């Protein structure tokens, strides 16, 4: 398992789940791929199909409508699959947590392995979060 985790830590394919966010985290996630931050140098790649994903990046508060879909999506992802909550929304609900359309914490819907707080988190913070995930995987 150790050998495999090492491979996994060097080749993390992420799938972006937008669970009713405000778009900012999403844009910052895309920003990670672009020349200034370029996470491809760590082997991180954004994929279009959840079947290829190793890590789900969840942003947003997961409102009533989208939450079951997020859960369904998580079930459809091949395991091992890690979930990273990007931004304040999955962590605390930000300013939306008292809305009628927000069922509760995202954690209740899918298990989240790692939070990257911030509104939105800076790309550097996200890279740090991913590095932490890698550390967990390696040891």
């Amino acid at each position, binding site marked *: 398992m150790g050998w495999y985790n090492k491979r996994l830590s060097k080749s993390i394919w992420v799938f972006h789940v937008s669970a009713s966010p405000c778009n900012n985290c999403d844009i910052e996630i895309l920003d990670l791929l672009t020349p200034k931050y370029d996470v491809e140098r760590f082997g991180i790649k954004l994929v279009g199909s959840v079947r290829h994903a190793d890590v789900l990046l969840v942003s947003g508060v997961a409102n*009533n*409508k989208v939450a*079951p879909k997020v859960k369904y999506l998580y079930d459809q992802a091949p395991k091992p699959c890690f979930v990273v909550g990007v931004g304040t929304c999955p962590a605390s609900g930000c300013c939306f947590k008292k809305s*009628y*359309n927000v*069922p509760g914490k995202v954690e209740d819907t899918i298990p989240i392995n790692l939070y990257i707080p911030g509104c939105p988190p800076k790309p550097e913070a996200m890279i740090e979060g991913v590095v932490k995930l890698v550390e967990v995987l390696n040891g």
Partner: protein
Amino acid sequence: MDNVENFVSLHNTKISKLIKKKKRFYFNVKNDDVIEIADYLFNKIGCRLSTATAQETYNGIEVLYHFSHDESGEYFCPRVIITDKKNPEMNSITPIVKGAEWIEREMYDLWGIKFIGHPRLELLLTKDNPAGINQPLRFRRES
């Protein structure tokens, strides 16, 4: 300003409670006249429907349309007050202004206002919502 004066003089029987602010004109119309007013504003003057707002007050449900006249930057805001709060109904302007389709659907969704003559009156935002949210923006009273 010419537009406004023309408008008021043409429809002075149909509008009431005209409030003129700098480039903003709020006035009340009756439910029966709203289609005619919308037709005039959209087709004759060439206004663009910005949006419409519903709001529940103690007197009833107010629906406030915002027509923007882009050349002069003026806003025409006809206001319809629906007094029947249990079963709110009003005429739809979607057949005249296609852009009102979603706006009226949203009001139907969040306030439960039935728009008569709307081509496709379905829930907009809470459609298929598993939590079963029902007209969330209405006042909730226990009884």
